[in-house]
């Protein structure tokens, strides 16, 4: 510390407003910055002064030339927030042929056991002859247990979905039903209840997708934005349509 500057370095501390300006300008060293940041958190009046300076310098702030970030940045933000890997799922499991073969096999095995279960609980309003006309598809969960039973009414363009009671997903996400045509991409059929039987009207554009070999799948999704353009995560239950 040289002698000729000692008088000025000992200058009195600035008033709050000027100090807020110093902080926004960025001239404070590491320790002084941390003190100012603590004060922003604890002192609403000081935080407002800082906000005012940020607004004053905004034209300079926004002058920086934009630069597109690499795709990894968004993926890592999602990971750090503990979200499911939307893009990973899209590129991975959904397009993985081996997974779908295995899932279809599972559904077949679960189907044999569950059709009997379903018959035992036939809704009283449905006659035996009506039942025979409507094929049943079981949507099996990853562990092989049935998640939903789908009864497809091709004439009316409806799918009756009956859930098998199971633990609710704790994340607050909801079930979304998808139809995956043979060789096609998943198309949303909308929100699916996990506790009540529900008749879902199939949009005209998707009716042709309900054919033998197509797949019904359920994913956990955000309620906002349903029907989504594409699933964000791996299916929790899948079933293959064998006959219509």
């Amino acid at each position, binding site marked *: 510390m*040289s002698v*000729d*500057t*000692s*008088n*000025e*370095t*000992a*200058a009195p501390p*600035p008033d709050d*407003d*000027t100090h807020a*300006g*110093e902080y*926004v*300008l*960025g*001239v*404070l*060293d*590491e320790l002084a*910055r941390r003190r100012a*940041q603590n004060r922003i958190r604890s002192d609403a009046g000081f935080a*407002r002064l800082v*906000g005012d300076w*940020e*607004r*004053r*310098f*905004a*034209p*300079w*702030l*926004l*002058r*920086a*030339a*934009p*630069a*597109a*970030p*690499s795709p*990894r*940045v*968004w993926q*890592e*933000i999602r990971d*750090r*927030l503990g*979200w499911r890997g939307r893009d990973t799922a899209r590129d991975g499991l959904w397009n993985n042929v081996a997974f779908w073969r295995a899932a279809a096999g599972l559904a077949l095995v679960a189907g044999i056991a569950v059709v009997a279960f379903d018959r035992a609980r036939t809704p009283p309003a449905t006659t035996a002859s009506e039942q025979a006309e409507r094929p049943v598809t079981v949507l099996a969960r990853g562990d092989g247990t049935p998640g939903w039973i789908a009864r497809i009414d091709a004439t009316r363009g409806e799918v009756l979905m009956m859930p098998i009671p199971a633990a609710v997903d704790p994340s607050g996400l909801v079930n979304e039903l998808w139809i995956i045509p043979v060789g096609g991409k998943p198309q949303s059929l909308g929100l699916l209840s996990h506790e009540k039987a529900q008749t879902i009207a199939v949009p005209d554009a998707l009716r042709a997708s309900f054919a033998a070999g197509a797949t019904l799948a359920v994913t956990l999704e*955000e309620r*906002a*934005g349903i029907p989504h353009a594409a699933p964000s995560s791996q299916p929790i239950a899948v079933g293959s349509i064998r006959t219509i």
Partner: protein
Amino acid sequence: MELRQQDVTEPENELLSRVAGGDRDAFERLYQATASRLLGICLRLVPDRGEAEDILQDVYVAAWRKAPQFDPLRSSATVWLGSIARHRAIDRLRASSAQIDQAPIALAETQPDPAPAPAHQAEADSERARLDDCIGRLEPRRRTLIRTAFFDGATYEELATRSGSPLGSVKSWIRRGLQQLRACLEG
């Protein structure tokens, strides 16, 4: 372009309000609308791209958590997000001494104010024009120091070294400059 960013009705405000309510789709759209601009702000202070992208991640993780604190009556979403980005980048500068800019600063009494780039002039909005006007009214020494501090993220100590001026003088020039600037902008 700058005009839209300053507009209080900018779509980013609406998105940020929805993010405050936990809307992840809105957050993704907000990211898409603002990430390039925010990376630009980080790169201005931390030129290493990998490091700047790490800061950008911190910025959006913080933005998701702090979104409920955003007050659309006092700020715009782009300024709010841009300020988080700038402060995170400065924090990173302070934590690593490797990146300190040593370029000397000339503090001539009569140094002319550098003219804004033509592209900026063409799209200058009233806020930008006012800031440039008020900066232009400052004594050249104060003006140069405040500019260098803002665009290089330099500390008082670095500014004193780079300009060859006593630390106390640099502090008092900048503080008086800030007070004049506020009086001009609020006047």
